[in-house]
């Protein structure tokens, strides 16, 4: 197994794990972590892409690396913002979950009321 394939598989595994976390877990903090897992997976894919970019005639394509660095900055900012909001939510309500639907009423399940 070449290192590129390995990196690809690891990237895919990270994305898959992260996807599961983001979709299934109601805790915002865990969602933020899962989000970062997906991000790492995607950055790994970019890494492989950089090797493949050699086909364009460069010994190693620098552009994806620039993108990964930018992406990490963006992901960091996103995580910071999300954590700040989660903290604020916890301070205000004493809990932090995305499950309840603030501001909208749940429908009556079963028969119609009107």
């Amino acid at each position, binding site marked *: 197994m070449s290192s590129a394939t390995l990196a690809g598989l690891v990237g895919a595994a990270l994305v898959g794990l992260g996807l599961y976390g983001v979709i299934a877990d109601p805790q915002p903090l865990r969602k933020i972590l899962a989000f970062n897992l997906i991000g790492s997976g995607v950055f790994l*894919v970019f890494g492989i892409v950089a090797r493949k970019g050699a086909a364009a005639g460069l010994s190693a394509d620098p552009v994806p690396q620039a993108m990964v660095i930018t992406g990490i900055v963006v992901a960091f900012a*996103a995580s910071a913002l999300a954590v700040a909001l989660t903290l604020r939510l916890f301070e205000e309500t004493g809990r932090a979950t995305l499950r309840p639907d603030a501001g909208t009423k749940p429908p009556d399940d079963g028969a119609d009321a009107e």
Partner: protein
Amino acid sequence: MTEGASAFAATAGGSLLALPILVPAAGVLLSFLLGGRQAERIALALMPVQFGFAVAIASLIWRSGQPLVYVLGGYAPPLGIALRADGFSAVMLVTTSLIMPAAGLYARTNFATPNDGTERRAPLVFWTLLQAIQAALSLIFLGGDLFNLYVALELLTFAAAPLVCLDGRPETLAAALRYLMFALFGALFYLLGVALLYGAYGTLDIVLLSRQIRAEPAVWLAAGLMTAGLLAKTALFPLHLWLPPAHANAPAAASAVLSGLVVKGSFFLIVRLWFNVLPALPNAVPGAILAALGSAAILAGSALALRQERLKLLIAYSTVAQIGYLFLMFPLASGPWSAEAFSGGVMQALSHAFAKAAMFLSAGLIAESLGHDRIAGLGGAGRAMPVTFLALGLGGLSLMGLPPSGGFAAKWLLMKASIEAGQWVWAVVMLAGGLLAGGYLYRVLAPALSGNRPRLKSPPRRSRENVALALALAAVLLAFAPPTFFAFLQIGRPAAGAALR
């Protein structure tokens, strides 16, 4: 394809393209630097400047009949990054530069800087974020590089999400967090798609990609991922979970910007993707999927709007529905009717931007004056504040697609294209959507103009009512857009640009 080398050579006046991004970005920095008391002044002073740039860009494009190009730092793509503005970019820029100051003027009351010189958090954040949204939107409308657009997209989310929770109430915090998380989730899909495209072609420049792109698995996977990610940010049904609470709980001026402009940013990129990056590929089935989701959005969003008990939630669900109309242009993207479909989609984006901004501002005035926005409690309110309800009603006219309104023009064009293409199902959905819109507006407007005037906590300020009314009138005036306007929209649209003018 006749652009040839010109795609990478900066056109005359191309350097103008950097300004709509730089100016609000500079405004953000200045606002931080000079402190909260100056943020409002900086934001309001720069907005007319921004409008001037937008109009200048539009007129340059109109005069040359070609997209404007600017190559940053002189490094040509694929290594460098290009800014490009076509007809669609220009009208979106102008629209943004009109709605932003409207929201700003309206918000002066809510986010006024205290006279005693103390610095408060909410005004500083509001005025700074407003400029940040404008910078991000400009970058989205002008960017020519898919990764660059990813950054713009994230900037837009970072600026938009905190606007939702400016007043710090718990439900607004939850709404903002949901919005942020789902948008971030979508952005990762987009980023993964970008990585795949770069892996396949070694470039992310839109024009370069569109020349090399072939129908192959990596491309389709990338297109699916990128589109889905953008749909999450556009809140196309069934990915709308974040939109109603976020738009309904944000301050009115923020709601107007979020509903009118911010969702159009990611929509703009979907159009870029399918019309500028992938136009050469067969796209009938993906287009039909998008339009089917759009149809579901129209029907479900309108039906849900009918069931809401609060005015702002009703308007937010109406946004869910109106976003659906935007996606009916995709299955009609190829064929002799494609120019009509494109114009219809763009017209829908513009008219909804103005109409929805007007409606959210009106709803804000209603909520402030009555102290609530329960629809059941609106009886007679239209008599107490007629101008506000006129703005609400004119905005509604456009949503229903009754003439004269931009919404009518959009519906007419989209319907004509769908009939000509033999895809009448979209036309039927549009009719049903118009009827349901009539229903939910009737729920609001019929009682509002009947019965006794309610006691107002405070009458709305005339200047703020006029801002809402001006936006609603803009939505109406779009109905009278001359044929040259539609020709302008086609500037820079690949492939079908030659088919119909």
